[in-house]
């Protein structure tokens, strides 16, 4: 205070005095507590708008080349699905021929096929057994390039006839000595091109389901082996699968309702749609959420299944962004742009497209692609579902757009 009076007494120091006051007041009033007042007359400066946009350009695509070899699983069996028709899956297997895996392979050694089965992904009647013939293949095939709709090239040589597999998670099938000897010849071939000879002349086996089977098995490829045991051995030597694949044939497919489409996880039938992405179509540029909703016909899926029958559970869907040119080639399921789990309350798949739409609207991202939708995974298990299409009255594919209208309330 004394200093203030001194400053005040000296008029030449008035700027200092003013500065002194300013600093003091800044310190005194430095705290703010912005609260909520005035709601009775402060109008909303924004309005939340909720719009629904039907996706008109919507269809299915079944022309995409689908490859089924060397996936995590291979399917084998047969099932008459009341919704998706009669599905016949033939498994193809070929053992490796690694000398490091087997020390000695005697002429009287035993050879087995051990199949690791995933009971949780059985497709069909869980109370039945599936009957297979193990038939020798008669021509070269490659898992990597095996198309799912290629017919399996089987010979007349039935190696094992009518073996039955129930709901166990693992089964060991003994193969005849003649088949082991055929394998042994390549194993002990000491020519320089042994591997090449094996590749082009040993074709492997096909798991061919027999009529009367009513179940398709999901066989785990990494858990399945060819086993070898010499007479004096107490343990088995094992060879992994060198190549594996499966073929699928669908017959007697019901025509179904025209307001829904079959969709398969193996890409043999996917949904294919597009919609314009611009300010007019979106209705706003202030997009808080753009959600794509696809509806699953859960009532038909579950209501038509006979007792004790199941389908591999579908709980996930994915969207890919592909140009029409890219659709001419296969895609392996990697690089999905969007993925979502099913909403079990209303059996919908809800994709959050907000970032993508904003990137197209404001970031210059290309919108020349189309949306390709598929379900679960292309991992060798036969996944199937029914999705409503744009012929549906209510559950048609749609965009739910939540946006902010910025002009409301502006003076």
């Amino acid at each position, binding site marked *: 205070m004394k200093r203030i*009076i001194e400053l*005040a*007494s*000296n*008029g*030449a120091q*008035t*700027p200092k*005095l*003013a500065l002194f*006051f*300013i600093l003091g*007041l*800044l310190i005194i*009033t*430095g*705290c*703010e*507590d*912005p*609260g*909520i*007042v*005035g*709601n*009775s*007359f*402060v109008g*909303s*400066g*924004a309005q*939340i708008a*909720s719009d*629904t946009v039907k996706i008109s350009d919507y269809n299915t695509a079944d022309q995409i080349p689908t490859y089924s070899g060397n996936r995590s699983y291979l399917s084998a069996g047969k099932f008459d699905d009341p919704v998706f028709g009669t599905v016949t899956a033939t498994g193809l297997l070929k053992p490796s021929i690694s000398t490091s895996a087997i020390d000695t392979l005697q002429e009287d050694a035993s050879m087995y096929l051990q199949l690791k089965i995933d009971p949780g992904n059985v497709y069909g009647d869980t109370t039945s057994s599936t009957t297979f013939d193990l038939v020798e293949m008669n021509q070269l095939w490659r898992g990597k390039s095996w198309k799912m709709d290629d017919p399996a090239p089987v010979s007349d040589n039935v190696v094992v006839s009518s073996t039955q597999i129930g709901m166990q998670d693992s089964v060991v099938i003994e193969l005849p000595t003649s088949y082991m000897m055929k394998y042994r010849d390549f194993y002990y071939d000491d020519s320089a091109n042994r591997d090449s000879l094996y590749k082009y002349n040993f074709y492997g086996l096909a798991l061919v389901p027999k009529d009367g089977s009513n179940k398709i098995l999901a066989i785990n490829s990494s858990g399945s082996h060819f086993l070898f045991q010499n007479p004096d051995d107490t343990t088995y030597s094992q060879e992994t699968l060198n190549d594996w694949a499966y073929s699928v044939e669908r017959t007697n497919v019901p025509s179904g309702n025209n307001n829904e489409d079959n969709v398969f996880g193996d890409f043999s039938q996917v949904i294919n749609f597009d919609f314009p992405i611009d300010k007019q179509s979106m209705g706003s*540029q*202030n*997009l*808080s*959420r753009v*959600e794509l909703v696809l509806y699953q016909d859960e009532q038909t899926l579950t209501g038509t299944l006979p007792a004790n029958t199941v389908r591999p559970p579908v709980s996930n869907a994915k969207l890919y962004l592909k140009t029409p040119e890219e659709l001419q080639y296969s895609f392996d399921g990697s690089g999905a742009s969007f993925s979502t789990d099913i909403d079990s*309350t*209303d059996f919908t798949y809800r994709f*959050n497209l*907000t*970032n993508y739409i*904003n*990137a197209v*609207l*404001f*970031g210059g991202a290309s919108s020349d692609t189309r949306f390709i939708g598929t379900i679960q995974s292309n991992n060798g298990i036969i996944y199937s579902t029914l999705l409503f299409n744009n012929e549906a009255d209510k559950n048609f594919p749609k965009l*739910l*757009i*939540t946006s*902010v209208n*910025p*002009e409301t309330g*502006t*003076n």
Partner: protein
Amino acid sequence: MKYFYLSIALVLTVATTAFGQLQPKNKLRSGSVYSYLGVGQPIDYRASYADGMGLNGVAIYDDFSASLANPAFWGRTYFSQATGGLSLNNYNARDYSGRSKNSELTANLFQAVFPLVRNKLGFSLSLSPISRMSFMTYQQTTLPPGMSNAGDSLLYAEQNRGDGGLNRLELGFGYSFGKHLSIGYAPSLVFGPINNHLSILYGSPDYQPIVYDVETKNRGFGNRFGIFYRSSHIFNSHDNLDIGGQVSLPVNLRSRRSIKSDKSVGNGTKTVIIKSEDEFGAGNIRMPMEVTGGLTYSPNNKWQVGSEVLYQQWSDYQNYYKQPENYMSDRYKFAVGTRFLPQQGNINTFFSRFKYNAGVSYDSGYLKLQGQNIETLMFSAGLGILSPKSLSSVDINFHFGIRGTKANNLVKEQIWGVKISLNLAERMFYRPKLQ
């Protein structure tokens, strides 16, 4: 003289910085919530030396301090003058649902007045605010199920921060017809942005927040006229009776509005124009006419007593879309105040170094919400600190008042604040006879 120029430069720098609103965001930037409406709170033309009296000073002339209150004063100028300063206001607001405390630091004005012919013809150059928007509001809304795309109810919050306001760049002239009558005229460029910064935040992480700015740029021309009359020896040989008035004609602003928004794209943020000025089209905001009249009686050279009436025709206001606002109401302000100058010309004692001011004003307000005028009762007091070695001074004025009401869930504000003004006066362009 060098000190004078340096001081002008200092005041100008401070004023322009404050006009540019370079204060840290959200610190000392929120004012009255009532500034949400229209183009913000109107700011009166005031003389810093009359501020402590609660008056604008339309009928109070000071030889040593520049005044914006009445253009007629500039014709009576003898010394070159400059003034500028800062205001700090504190708002404690309450309604039935909440309370808030905000502070606002702003520039008052910058003004320089020069005599062309001493005591005959002078001109003024000034930059001053005429309205200020400075508020921050926060609202929460819950959309019930079925009213949004969310399956459940959707909670969102809206924060609205407004700033900006209209400023006046004015070049005016005053002319005196002898000792008694003066008149003045001041054309001006009125300009300034009105900004609303809105943020929409959701209670669910599934929804992206939306942030956007609504900017309205305004430009127009204004005209002010002033008159001042001084009569002496009314009741005794030392008294003066001053009568003053000023009229500010309506200002039609050409306004351009745009909406911009920051969008997250990839790893960065991009500002995009949501709606351009061309899409909005030109707007026209109409600011109302203002008339102020005052009467000051000085029984001697120590005391002054003054009163004023201000009228602003806010019912004539038009918004951007050329529409009247039904919440606008004509504004009347009545004020009385007194001023005490202990020792004119003799400042050798401590208390004689100050000028003492006090006053009170009633303002009917320019808003009428839910049938209630948003009135303000303001008490003012101030000190003028005189310089013993020059003609300059510093005015420090305090005010405390109450605005609004809690009736009908409106907002009642307690306002206190301080204004500090630096008044410079020099005799320029004067060649002493003796070097």
